């Protein structure tokens, strides 16, 4: 009767747990690369090994707890130490581990094989955004979280991809081996997309390598996984995988846009134009620290609205944007922003939120400064 009860209980528990564990959203995603499937299968193998050991160990334990209760008149036996049993329970786990280490080693070797990549993308972590640079293609852009602050503070309804959406995703073609080169400008970040099974730290002063070969078009979302400061939780990674021909079209479009922007450097810009462009740049790059209304959060992040240091000294203002402030959280945007963006954001900061410098900063001035 008692064993029957135990069996029924065990059966019920298993029946209850297994669909939950297997259902989506409770378990590691199988993913869309050969490697992610391999890793998922390693994960499930070791999981079921643990379940099997657990059933045996806890089975014996709970059997003993029910069967050998003193209240049921159990008398203690007096046995201890048995070389055979002890050798067995050392050797059997060892064998299981060896059996587990073999496929794990093979998968790991595969993960480390970054050879023969067709595309190289440099991924740079910055507080708190990702920058992607397609090596050899002259294309580079930053990718910022696009979830509005109102959704975070609860003033607006949260939408489906809350915190997992960006202004510009990393676009990659399917069925193509892409090598990712990861580094960081400030602190350590970590680039993770669960469905691609790629997680790699981005470390200042180091360039790490990883690779991915996506098999299905789609949008894959992840996050920064290494604590990197205040907005660590607001640094999503989004990868959009396109069919090869769509990717080529996207690439051509981006190149053309980059050329357009480069041409803009030579001409004189109107205040209104700069303000419009500057507001975009400010919103995606600067607002996370200095706030959308320029109020900052002193002392770490000074207010820009009414900041007389900035308004009285335009050279210092531009220099701060280009070179950052060493020893503080203000990074150098020299390589992150192009001259048009730097000029636009400087102009915006000088003329927004009641600031009334009235001047414009022209992209051509920035080009000169950068060449110095």
């Amino acid at each position, binding site marked *: 009767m008692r064993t029957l009860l135990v069996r029924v209980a065990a059966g019920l528990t298993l029946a209850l747990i297994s669909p939950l564990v297997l259902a989506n959203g*409770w378990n*590691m995603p199988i993913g869309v690369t050969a490697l992610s499937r*391999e890793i998922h299968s390693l*994960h499930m193998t*070791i999981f079921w090994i*643990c379940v099997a*050991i657990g059933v045996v*160990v*806890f089975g*014996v*334990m709970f059997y*003993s*707890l029910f069967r*050998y209760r*003193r*209240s049921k008149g*159990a008398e203690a036996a*007096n046995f*201890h*130490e048995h070389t055979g049993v002890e050798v067995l*329970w*050392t050797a059997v786990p060892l064998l299981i*581990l060896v059996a*587990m*280490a073999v496929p*794990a*080693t093979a*998968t*790991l070797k595969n*993960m*480390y094989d970054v050879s023969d990549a067709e595309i190289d993308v440099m991924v740079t972590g910055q*507080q708190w955004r990702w920058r992607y640079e397609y090596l050899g293609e002259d294309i580079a852009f930053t990718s910022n979280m696009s979830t509005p602050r109102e*959704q975070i503070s*609860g003033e607006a309804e*949260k939408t*489906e991809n*809350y*915190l997992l959406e960006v202004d510009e995703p990393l676009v990659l073609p399917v069925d193509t081996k892409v090598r990712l080169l990861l580094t960081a400008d*400030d602190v*350590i970040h*970590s680039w993770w997309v*669960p469905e691609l099974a790629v*997680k790699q*730290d981005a*470390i*200042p*002063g*180091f360039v790490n390598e990883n690779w991915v070969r996506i098999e299905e078009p789609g949008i894959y979302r992840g996050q*920064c*996984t*290494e*604590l*990197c*400061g*205040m*907005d*660590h*939780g607001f640094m999503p990674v989004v990868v959009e995988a396109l069919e090869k021909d769509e990717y080529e079209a996207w690439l051509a479009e981006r190149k053309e846009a980059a050329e357009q922007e480069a041409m803009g450097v030579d001409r004189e810009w109107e205040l209104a134009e700069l303000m419009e462009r500057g507001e975009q740049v400010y919103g995606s790059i600067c607002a996370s620290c200095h706030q959308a209304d320029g109020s900052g959060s002193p*002392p770490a992040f000074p207010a820009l609205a009414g900041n007389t240091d900035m308004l009285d000294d335009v050279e210092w203002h531009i220099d701060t944007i280009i070179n950052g402030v060493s*020893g503080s959280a203000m990074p150098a945007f020299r390589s992150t922003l192009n001259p048009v963006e730097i000029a636009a954001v400087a102009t915006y900061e000088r003329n927004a939120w009641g600031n009334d410098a009235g001047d414009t900063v022209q992209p051509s001035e920035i080009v000169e400064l950068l060449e110095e």
Partner: protein
Amino acid sequence: MAFHFPKPTPEQSTTTADAGLADSHHHERPRGLMRWVLTTSHKEIGSLYLIFSLTMFFIGGIFALVVRAELFQPGLQLVEPEFFNQMTTMHGLIMVFGAVMPAFVGLANWMVPLQIGAPDMALPRLNNFSFWLLPVAFTLLLSTLFMPGGAPNFGWTFYAPLSTTYAPPSTTFFILSLHLAGISSILGAINIIATILNLRAPGMRMMDMPLFVWTWLITAFLLIAVMPVLAGVITMMLMDINFGTSFFSAAGGGDPVLFQHLFWFFGHPEVYILILPAFGIVSAIIPTFARKRLFGYASMVYATASIAILSFLVWAHHMFVVGLPLVAELFFMYATMLIAVPTGVKVFNWITTLFRGSITFEPPMLFALAFVVLFTIGGFSGLMLAIAPADFQYHDTYFVVAHFHYVLVPGAVFAIMAAVYYWLPKWTGHYPHERLSQVHFWLSVIGVNLTFFPMHFSGLAGMPRRIPDYALQFADFNMVSSLGALLYGASQLVFVLVIVMCVRGGKKAPAKAWEGAEDLEWSVPSPAPLHTFETPPNFERPVH
């Protein structure tokens, strides 16, 4: 023999019967507060450690509840991300260095001399000093919460350069406080080693020592080996922050990964420092309430030693995604998997001890049994984390949070609670209130599992650690975790109630409070008088 035992005079031997008066003819003892400040008694210092640890457990617990309250639902409701990061950091630091470690040192202070038949710790004044460093260290650490820029906000692992170039100004105070806590640990460890090696009762060989003593001896060696490494790494941080060096700053030619190697060379042995004494406690309690000798005493000792040695060879399994070379990944994966073997030996030993015993379920036993089950679950997720390719998916997610909380909360903390219930009759002379203890146990077990089990799922589904806000698909798991945390936190008030009631009164306990208990501490009266074993007892090996 370097230690001097006063010969008992006829006068003394009459007073030892009434042990409370045993020191009446010594110089007058300080009273009131000064009694506690100046005490050199291992029992009083043990109590100080335990009370300090309990206080820190509640402070660290309140920080955890702030974290769980913010994570109750998506969005930022209660705290700003900056403060959230301070809470996760302070929670970790306080729990590891302020709650769990001092609790084990407190238990060692109380019980090691009693279990080996020693009159006190070998170095009583040093003992006083190592305790009183702790309140200073942790007052300093907590004071950083009120400093401009706030408390440390870079996680309890304080990875550079977030903890150096990008850290708040209070980091220098944090470094000083960790130095003090580290010195305290090293001195405590030296004292424990000196006591165990020198003051055992005549006739007690090393292989006769209770397992709590054995596990603490090994833990103390681990402490002496790795606390200086921690001291080194935080000193390097101090130099980077204040004196312009670049140990960990890439801009100055330094190496942020070096920080992680040094930290985890300390950190991995540290996690065994937090669990080995727990193994000793459980190995004392299970045989007592199964009324059956521990199945494999010698193999338990060897397993503990193997775990300690292996702990120096596995540190980089915390760093599988920092970009180590393939051979390093393989080495650390194999070495980590190997730890499962001696850990398994321990679990199998406990269960074989239960098999064909005569089992009762007093409060210490309840906690010890929950320890075996829930620590093993934490061990399973540890084994999964050891598989390096899979760790690329697990790393820095809530799966890891679930794993280490399973080994630390229903692991180390439950073992500490089991020890408190087990030895309270010896400390106070009263049994803890049985019904309330059971209430505490069941609420704790339910609370702990509600808190930490869903974290396995949210982690596997993709939720990173240390984020103040999360995507909508993780909402249900987080709500359950937060409710569980509230239940677990609140049920610890029952624990305090039980302890206070037990100190004040309750069912009287005899010298041997548990009928199945065998070690030397049960040969002295309950409550243990201030001075015990002034003449060393004759140790007789139990005959089986």
